[in-house]
């Protein structure tokens, strides 16, 4: 099959539109996700519903209703764009007058700030997926990374040169420890990682509350679930200085380093090759002498470690403290990471692009809520809709009547309980 593809003459760019190219499928899934979001806005926004209610009152009513629908959806998606990437008016103003660059760049800075830990944790989840392992525990691992990083950054004092690496290492260690539990259990007893990591998430959330309420980590003089603040020497400083008002921090370089590491690991190292073979065909991996147990443990250590690193980067670059709600719920980057990794097909560069996209959706969702009053949860709904479509490429192909025989192979990222 692959040989046939390779010998086929290169096709014209435009013909790719009708093909089964994964990037095309992902783009169409994105389009469908936005359509779902638009339908939800139309069916739930009171102003739009009022317009539709008057459908039979006058001849102009249907046109009016359609216009109101488009206006609301348009306003929502426009503020999402201007709030997360760039506002053309503000950009033009800055360009012509040379002033207000901080306001103009704030949206993109926020998107990068949000994307930084997201890239790191998603790379971890993606490496696990490539090995055929579903790490739903990334969120809990990021939480433990955040806890240990906060402890290292606030309870130990040392100069910046040492303190930042120490804090990051502590977060990494937290992730490694919490990744080791499902990894070792899966390798030694065959416990399914999905259920173990879901359960371990809840254990770690409970531990988070315990930690931020403990005398060691709790902010002195506080009764609430709030931790101490990181020493300035342990914080990841804003790239353009504190005065710029732009939050994007030196954490970006951590993310770039992680991407390079993942590229090297997956594409250049023999360990990464073993990961991919194990993911593609466990039997072949075993037959060629790879030690499946060691691979499972190593993957979980790496995946968990990256999640922990993401947790500490999140703390050190934005809030500088954690509370009992840290990463809990849908806002948890560990859950977004699953969708990011799937959209990016688990490849480092794919994950970078999809992280930026989902970060923009999240940041834009906040702007949308502030301007139009449409709740920002819509962004998460769109994200999950996109991933549902990405996970079902055959459906996307059928909707758009893409050419090519419907795929008759089953691609699974996870295994059932019994394996």
């Amino acid at each position, binding site marked *: 099959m692959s040989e046939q593809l390779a010998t086929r003459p290169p096709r014209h760019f435009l013909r790719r539109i009708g093909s089964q190219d994964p990037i095309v499928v992902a783009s169409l899934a994105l389009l469908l996700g936005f359509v779902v979001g638009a339908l*939800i806005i139309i069916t*739930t*926004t*009171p102003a739009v519903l009022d317009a539709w209610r008057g459908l039979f009152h006058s001849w102009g009513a249907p046109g009016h209703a359609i216009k109101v629908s488009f206006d609301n959806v348009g306003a929502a998606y426009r503020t999402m764009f201007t709030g997360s990437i760039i506002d053309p008016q503000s950009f033009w103003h800055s360009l012509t007058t040379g002033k207000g660059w901080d306001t103009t760049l704030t949206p993109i800075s926020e998107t990068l700030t949000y994307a930084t830990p997201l890239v790191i944790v998603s790379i971890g989840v993606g490496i696990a997926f490539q090995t055929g392992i*579903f790490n*739903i525990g990334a969120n809990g691992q990021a939480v433990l990374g955040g806890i240990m990083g906060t402890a290292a950054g606030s309870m130990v004092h040392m100069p910046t040169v040492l303190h930042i690496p120490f804090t990051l290492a502590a977060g990494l260690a937290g992730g490694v420890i919490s990744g080791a*539990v499902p990894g070792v*259990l899966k390798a030694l*007893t*065959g*416990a*399914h990682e*999905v*259920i*173990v990591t*879901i*359960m*371990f998430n*809840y*254990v770690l959330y*409970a*531990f988070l*509350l*315990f930690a931020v*309420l403990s005398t060691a980590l709790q902010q002195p003089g506080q009764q609430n679930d709030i931790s101490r603040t990181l020493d300035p020497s342990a914080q990841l400083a804003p790239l353009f200085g504190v005065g710029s008002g732009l939050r994007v921090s030196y954490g970006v370089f951590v993310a770039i380093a992680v991407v390079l590491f993942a590229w090297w690991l997956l594409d250049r190292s023999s360990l990464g090759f073993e990961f991919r073979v194990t993911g593609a065909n466990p*039997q072949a991996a*075993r*037959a060629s002498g790879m030690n499946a147990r060691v691979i499972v443990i190593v993957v979980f250590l790496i995946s968990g470690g990256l999640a922990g690193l993401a947790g500490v980067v999140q703390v050190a670059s934005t809030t500088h403290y954690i509370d009992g709600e840290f990463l809990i*719920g*849908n806002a948890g980057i560990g*859950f977004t990471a*699953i*969708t990011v990794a*799937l959209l990016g097909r688990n490849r480092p560069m794919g994950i970078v692009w999809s992280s930026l996209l989902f970060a923009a959706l999240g940041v834009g969702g906040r702007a949308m809520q502030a301007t139009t009053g*449409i*709740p920002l*949860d*819509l962004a*998460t*709904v769109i*994200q*999950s*809709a996109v*991933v*549902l479509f990405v*996970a*079902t490429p*055959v*459906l996307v192909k059928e909707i758009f009547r893409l050419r090519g025989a419907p795929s*008759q192979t*089953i*691609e*699974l*990222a*996870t*295994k*059932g*309980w*019994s394996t």
Partner: protein
Amino acid sequence: MSAGITEARADAPVVRKVPRGRTRVIGVIMVVIGLFTLVAFGLNTSSKAHSALTFSPVDIISNAPWHLGTLTLLTLWTNVVLGLVMTAIGIEVLWRQPRRGVMGRFGLVSVLFLLALLFWAVRTPGPSQVSFIDLTSILVGSSEVTMVLIFGSLSGVMCERAGVVNIAIEGQFIAGAFVGAMVASTTNNYFYAAIGGLVAGGIIGWILAFLAVRYLSDQIIVGVVLVTMLSSLSSYLNLQIFTPYPNLNTGNVLGNFAIPLLDKIPIIGPVFFNQSAFFYLMLLLIGAVSFALFKTRYGLHVRAVGEHPHAAATVGINVARVRYINVVLGGAIAGVGGVAFISQQGQFQPGITSGLGYIALAAMIFGRWRPSGAVVACVLFGMSVYLADNLQTYNIPISTEILTMFPYIITIFVVSGLVGRVRAPAADGQPYLAG
């Protein structure tokens, strides 16, 4: 794996047994728990301290024609005995290494441990304001969570016996709870709310089946993403609909319906015969699901599809149809569970189900994909969830957060096979491609 022949035929179905080593590990864990109870809760207490055990919830004392009195026990000796019993069970497991029933023994030890913890917590003279354990009100209180969990795990049993992993139970709870709150507020009738939840959960089940059965997509991923989607959608709709129209989410709570005479029986009466309509429905469902899966022809088909879909197809069973039906029914059951949950909580709030769907999933695995086992696991998990929420009243020196971990840690033990062999239906999670 010891012989070369086994390795060469790695793809052949090998009958796996629990390695003896793991049974030994669980035996050691039981002995440690037993000794801990013996020392910390038993020998450590003053010999004068005593604990009281009562059986009558306050509100029905006057109604009951007769009621059980208070049982006062010496804390030290009671807990020493409980600790010794737990240790003995552990030693028995270590010694005999039984092939069956380890999980049941583990459940028993867990319950005894909770009991010993409670005896120790309410000892008088002691630090606690409460001087007695009311066994009946603990059972009644935990029955609310237990009921919801049972709905969820029955849904899981329905889907997974047909070979579809339903990790979206949490999402079906959310959908059921949301729709249930809305219908119950507008119609003021929980019967219609239950139907609304049934439909909502069924639709989520249908989406899962549509993507997993028809389009062969990854069931676990679809399930997880569905949960994310529903939890954010419910939070979105809560702001868009319930906030501007609070009359759609009034939060009326469904009252209990006492069965005459039977509710007067001590302990059993309040627990089983003075409950909401959803509780009776749940009792019926346990029987119905067990019967349908294990005593009917259709159930045989379902289990065949879950174990070996190709063989099932060969004898003329429509694999896709069986899976569709079961996943939609399972989703509907979990949807009703969501309504049952909201009928106690009243108002819908985002995140209100707080992972109960995942605990239900774990209970189903603990119960080895059987309705009866799942029910026992739900009772254990429901009690520990309830106690974790309510133990601060006893002023015990263990933090609530640590107690909250209890059901999750048990589940991790269980799926690690430490407690016994947990075998899923063979084709669970595998899409079926005809031909």
